[in-house]
């Protein structure tokens, strides 16, 4: 079996890319990476350490045009004879994988959280409230892996990087401008997340949340009411109708834990809840709970982390 892994290297090689290559390797068979973007050969060849045996790079496309990227991946799949294409379930995959599914007549498994078991693949459904086992009926398949579902594994050697002409065709989406995001760490990929809700009483009180996030190296998030009233930007809203995340650590302060919020975060490996109300439903979903005032607990936690880092 031959596996093709697509990686967008426009903003460097993300950890989710290493996860996708590791996943491809676990499927068995030879793993080829096809990439569009600007990463240099040295960065790309390091993907060999995660199990890639070859990198095919088409540098003709630097934008995010899904039709061009689809064409490049489809020609790479034809060249390598790959029957499985793996994506990290990121923004590019959401734009490209469905097109590729139709182009290749390959069943698309979105949001995979594990390697295949028999002929089924486990995915997150109902916004994280349940998992489903998907079977692909077609001969070819596309798997889009949720970030942070498995750890990258090394063991291989650097591999060769070859220029590839994937016949991208013309772009039909004209890019006028790109605005950089405000946070340094994109929320869906963050391993550590600090989140706060209405319990913080106003946007002016987010300084302590940001200070804790900086100390941890975490991304910041918020509950829906906070995004709706404009205290925080929409892209920080996690929950059923916002971003679904599955970080290693989710710290929630001043969020009661409504079912809609839990849906977006209960894939988190460890949940810490800080709330003044000991009856808050979030404690039922938490691993560690602190009944206390966020205004006192958060700065105390930040200090404790500083002390911990200094002594380690």
């Amino acid at each position, binding site marked *: 079996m031959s596996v093709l892994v697509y990686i967008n290297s426009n*903003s460097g090689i993300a950890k989710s890319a290493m996860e996708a290559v590791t996943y491809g390797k676990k499927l068995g068979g030879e793993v080829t990476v096809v990439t569009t973007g600007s990463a240099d050969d040295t960065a790309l060849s390091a993907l060999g350490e995660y199990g890639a045996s070859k990198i095919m790079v088409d540098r003709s496309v630097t934008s995010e045009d899904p039709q061009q990227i689809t064409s490049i991946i489809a020609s790479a799949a034809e060249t390598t004879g790959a029957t499985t294409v793996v994506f990290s379930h990121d923004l590019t995959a959401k*734009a490209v994988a469905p097109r590729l599914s139709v182009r290749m007549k390959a069943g698309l498994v*979105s949001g995979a959280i594990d390697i295949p078991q028999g002929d089924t693949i486990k995915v997150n459904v*109902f916004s994280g*409230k349940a998992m489903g086992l998907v079977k692909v009926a077609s001969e070819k398949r596309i798997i889009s892996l949720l970030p942070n579902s498995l750890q990258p594994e090394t063991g291989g050697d650097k591999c060769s990087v070859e220029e590839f002409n994937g016949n991208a065709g013309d772009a039909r989406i004209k890019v006028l401008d790109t605005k950089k995001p405000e946070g340094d760490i994109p929320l869906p990929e963050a391993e550590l997340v600090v989140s706060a809700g209405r319990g913080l009483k106003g946007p002016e009180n987010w300084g302590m949340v940001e200070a804790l996030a900086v100390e941890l190296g975490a991304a910041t998030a918020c509950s829906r009411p906070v995004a709706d009233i404009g205290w925080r930007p929409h892209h920080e809203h996690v929950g059923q109708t916002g971003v679904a995340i599955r970080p290693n650590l989710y710290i929630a302060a001043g969020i009661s834990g409504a079912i809609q919020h839990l849906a977006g975060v209960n894939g988190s490996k460890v949940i810490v809840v800080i709330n003044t109300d000991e009856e808050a439903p979030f404690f039922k979903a938490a691993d560690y709970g*602190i009944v206390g005032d966020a205004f*006192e607990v958060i700065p105390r936690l930040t200090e404790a982390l500083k002390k*911990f880092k200094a002594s380690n």
Partner: protein
Amino acid sequence: MKILVCISKSPDTTSKIAFTDGNSKFDENGVQYIVNPYDEWYALVRALELKEAGGGSVTICTVGSATDDAVIRKALAIGADDAVRIDCEPTDAFYTAMQIAEYAKANDYTLVLTGKETINYNGSQVGGMIAEAMDLPFISLATKLDVAGSTATAEAEVAGGIQICEVELPAVISCAKGMAEQRIPNMRGIMAARTKPLNVVAAADIQALTTFESYELPDAKSACKMIDPENMDELVSLLHTEAKVI
């Protein structure tokens, strides 16, 4: 401008999720269905705003059986002109998208809008699949959308930020938060929705590419360990030695 808004039904956001038939089917017992929030709040409302500003029509499209008509009426109550239901069970995203693409090809829409994903299957698949089947450009996860003449301008979430882009219509666009504000239907809208045209069309012959074999619920969390709010050193130590996340 003719706008087609693709909607899906989804369980009310407060629904408890359970399964029946050996965990192979979603348990609909006691579940209230709503219009998938992304389809309603963003795609449908923005379509209505574009129509109010520039004229044209807004048609709701869903793939489903007669039991879904109640959900379609909810969408009509918010303000669409008419609806079409493609009469079959939507077995997977590919099947659903191909049904919509077949219908849309024959009916000349300028803009096909979807929500960014459904809250039941979270696949983000249907929009891109419709676009590929119709050979149209697809803007994924748009947070802003304007139309001037035959050009649409959108802001969309891409790797590395927000992209401001332009596309020649027709096009398919999936809509995310920021696109529009939720509208609550008023009594007049609800009354009018009862008599708006709901056309039922026959399904095309399409083979699904995937099936959901079974479902699982996440393991119940073990009891939450309570920590003294005065003692954050203990929390840090537990996160390091017990949970091993820092």
